[in-house]
């Protein structure tokens, strides 16, 4: 079964949903989930060159970052612009506090951030999830799957815990 999934992930190239895996194997979603969890640790345990990345319930085959040096010898590394410090802070606030309005983000950061928000929206790292039921119906922002993938998180729960309770 793992061999089949390996083939599917390879052919797909992109992320594959749990549903698609379950359907292709004709098994239940929960069985597929167990299989995938197993497969991920199996790939890690056997120190395979490739890894399986999980983002929410989507799975994708990927290279491992420790080999990037060699990969770059082989293919042209595309220079990716890093996010600014301000963008990372804003993302952190949105990630922990979602859904959150621009006003609330600005209160926490102590500075305006409309420009930043539109950059993050453009990059697909955040999205408008809803509108607050308040005057002006302000937009509520949340993070996207791309956000998780960008930072190698398999779900939002994987963010390092904040000890806000201690301080609030």
């Amino acid at each position, binding site marked *: 079964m793992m061999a089949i999934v390996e083939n599917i992930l390879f052919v797909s190239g*992109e992320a594959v949903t749990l549903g698609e895996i379950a359907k292709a194997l004709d098994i239940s979603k929960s069985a597929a989930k167990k299989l995938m969890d197993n497969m991920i640790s199996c790939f890690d345990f056997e120190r395979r060159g490739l890894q399986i990345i999980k983002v929410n319930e989507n799975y994708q085959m990927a290279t491992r*970052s420790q080999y990037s040096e060699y990969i770059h010898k082989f293919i042209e590394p595309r220079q990716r*612009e890093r*996010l600014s410090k301000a963008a990372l802070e804003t993302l952190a606030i949105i990630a922990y506090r979602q859904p959150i309005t621009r006003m609330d983000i600005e209160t926490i950061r102590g500075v305006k951030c409309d420009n930043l928000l539109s950059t993050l929206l453009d*990059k697909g790292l955040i999205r408008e999830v809803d509108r607050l039921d308040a005057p002006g119906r302000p937009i509520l922002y949340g993070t996207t799957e791309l956000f998780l993938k960008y930072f*190698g998180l398999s779900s939002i729960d994987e963010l390092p815990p904040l000890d*806000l309770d201690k301080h609030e």
Partner: protein
Amino acid sequence: MAYTIKLDIFEGPLDLLLHLISKAKMDIKDISISDITQQYLDYLGEMKKFDIEIASEFLVMASTLVYIKSCNLVPRKKHSTDEDNVEDDEIDSREKLVQKLIEYKQYKEVGEKLRKREIIYSNVYYKQPEDISLDGIEDNLLYGLTKYDLFKALEKVLSLKEDNHHSDETKEHVVRQDTLTLQERSYQIKCLLNRRSRLSFFALFEEHYSKTDVIVTFLALLNMIKENQVELYQEKPFDDIIITKKRG
């Protein structure tokens, strides 16, 4: 421009305050408002000296600091409701500022952790989906689509193209497979043969083609021979190959 460098260092008044606090080796919860206010104002003065435009947020914070500091200096009298308020206000403002600093600091730290992850995961690569053509799925290709779908599709394509360089940065690196398929090449050759009775093999590569393309072309031709669609002949080894359409 010196000022962009300086302003880039601090993301806002809270960032600046945290910097000053850590520089003075103070505990956030136990900051000396008067010391920190002085340093904060000094910093703003420095910015002014370099002709740096000071964002309004920095000034608001300055006034808050000065206010909290001044409350400390005002002698407190009891039995006056007004001054009770002032006192409450002072404690309140100070407490609020400390809370804000603590909260902001947490996100700032998470931001730094995210940076580390960003660097690691920007070095993870994925592959392009395999191009597998299956029979029968081309039917109903555009079932139920209207002219507006057409319009929207183009709009999307154009806008994608516009911020291509943006999306390239955020999306994972994709390695492009840039070869002609056998099927495509056969089709091209067939089209050309409909127009001309004889084709030169070499002339099939007027545009720049990769080695794989040449191989694909050759395979396509072999396939077409097998299917009795074309005939090839060559005068002598290494000479051009002439392709003609098979009659009948």
